[in-house]
């Protein structure tokens, strides 16, 4: 019983981490049609900023709060300078963002060297339920992920900003004709997606520690999750992330980890092949 509970918690917490990472990726892919290969590096930057705050002796949570804003600002600048040129061609966008990611990743590698740097958890210790102990920080991540998910949903579905964003996505020329500044909306969307990646990086760095390939590790899982969930809505990628995160955390409990690792990808690709529109089709929120 206790074992099953711990397993369930592990699975849930890994699923939450994947959801957190995929949120930004999914928003950019759904709203702008760009598969952002630099997203993993935005995660890395968020983690790096948190580490910097810790290394300079500031409280860790200060770094975690600053990370999404700084990474979001960087995303806004990059969108205006570079990403903007790629909208017409999705493949060129992949290559361009890959190049951007390469630059960021190697710069960070140059700054931190080849080390694994640890950042302590801002909320340490464990929560005890009877005889079982679960990590307090991982629990916090789950809670924050839920809050961020609800927040994003409300932002997109209930605010005028969200409405303009969705209008820009669905019909750019009509949106422009209605007085919405579409370039500004694209910039804001990209910045928002990057900020979410920065937040994800800041939150997971105590769990995974900081190293240059931190972002890459999640990038492909993230892409697969977005495609499984279905591009074009907010809920689709989140659902896909839940499925992929849960599967990749759950399967190693019942089979050899190597097989499980590969099986998740094979299953996902097969699923996408036969249901290209993804789990949740259609353009809702």
């Amino acid at each position, binding site marked *: 019983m206790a074992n099953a509970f711990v397993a369930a918690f592990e699975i849930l917490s890994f699923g939450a981490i994947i959801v957190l990472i995929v949120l930004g990726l999914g928003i950019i892919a759904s709203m702008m049609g760009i598969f952002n290969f630099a997203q993993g590096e935005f995660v890395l930057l968020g983690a790096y900023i948190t580490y910097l705050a810790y290394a300079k002796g500031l409280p860790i949570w200060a770094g975690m709060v600053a990370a999404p804003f700084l990474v979001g600002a960087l995303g806004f600048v990059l969108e205006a300078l570079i990403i903007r040129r790629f909208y017409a061609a999705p493949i060129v966008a992949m290559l361009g963002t890959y190049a951007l990611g*390469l630059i960021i990743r190697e710069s960070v590698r140059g700054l931190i060297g080849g080390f694994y740097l640890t950042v302590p958890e801002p909320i340490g210790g464990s929560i005890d339920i009877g005889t079982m102990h679960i990590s307090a920080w991982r629990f916090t991540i789950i809670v924050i992920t839920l809050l961020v998910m609800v927040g994003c949903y409300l932002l997109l579905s209930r605010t005028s900003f969200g409405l303009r964003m969705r209008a820009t996505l669905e019909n750019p020329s009509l949106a422009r004709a209605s007085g919405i500044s579409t370039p500004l909306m694209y910039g804001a969307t990209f910045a928002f997606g990057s900020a979410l990646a920065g937040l994800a990086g800041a939150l997971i760095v105590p769990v995974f520690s900081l190293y240059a390939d931190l972002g890459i590790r999640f990038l492909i899982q993230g*892409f697969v999750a977005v495609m499984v969930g279905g591009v074009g809505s907010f809920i689709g990628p989140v659902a896909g992330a839940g499925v992929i995160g849960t599967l990749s955390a759950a399967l190693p409990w019942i089979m050899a980890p190597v097989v499980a690792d590969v099986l998740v990808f094979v299953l996902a*690709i097969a699923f996408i092949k036969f249901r290209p529109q993804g789990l949740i089709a259609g353009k809702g929120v």
Partner: protein
Amino acid sequence: MSKSMSAVKQAIPAEIGGGTDVAMTEGGATAQAVAGRKILPVVEGVVLVAALIAPLVLQDYLTVFATRVIILALFALSFDLVWGYAGIMSFGQALFFGSAGYGVALLARDLDITNIFLVLPAGTLIGLTFALLLGGFLLLGRHPSSVIFVSLGTLTGSYAADRLARGWYYLGGQNGIPSISSMTLGGYEFSEGPAFYYLVLGILVVVYLLCRFLVRSQFGLALAGLRENEQRIAFFGYKAQHLKAIIFAIGGAIAGLAGSLYAFHEGFVWPNMVGVVVSTQVVLYVLFGGSGTLIGAVIGTVIVEGVSFWLSDNYRDIWPIILGVLLLLVILFRPLGLISFVLGERERVGSFGASRKETDKEKRHAAP
């Protein structure tokens, strides 16, 4: 013929989104055509001569390095066929390269087979088989797959293979398979050096000529059409998906050939060889050199590998950053690659069968 040519040209700016560049090179192409010169064979000839004399002037350790570059150029050629000609973005080309490498490494380790006439065909066959399986799955089917799905599918396949190779004890896990014995021909052992270099160069030249014949054939014309406007090609009655699967398989076979040569040349295989790192590396080569020209792939490989070899002594840390910046600049401002500095758009696309004199005349009549 000329009608479809202009259609091809019109489609290009739409794809790349950088109208001015294309217009510029197009103007250059017309000037070249009027002057009656052909640049492409000259470039190819220069590269071939340089490659032939290289071992004579290079020191031994540089010849070993040059051999590696030639093998990687062969690999780049396979990606160029798939992306530059057919417009299939294969982000997982290393899957075929690496699996063939692992395949011949296992042949050498477990069955003691190193005969060149057995291992190279075996590697090619492995590449072909994997490409047929993956390509067949990703490309064929009732509904045509989207470009995004194919590119991410190949990327995922390569990543999954990397993970599998890392975790599978039989394949050596993280360390891969070390100390593969040399490739043999009768009693002769191919060790690193000029002999291996000329063997590899010979293979590259043969494969290059075959590819050149292929892309200048009717089949190649249909491929270029696929790249520029798939729907139109489908309306013409071509089976677009079948064409794609065929070229994908051919690309896989060439990558397999390159992979088996690489395994024997380096003497070991390791998980990165099937993974995302090598997959993206080959994309870099081809983008730098110029996709859609076979020689561009070769030149790109030589430049990227050469410069990184040269810089890695002093600037090992910042070289990848420079590479990223250069790549970004090429994508933004020179989408047709470095080759487009010397090669006009018209030569790049090719004249496909019609004799040059005629097309020249047509061109003069067309242009007021």
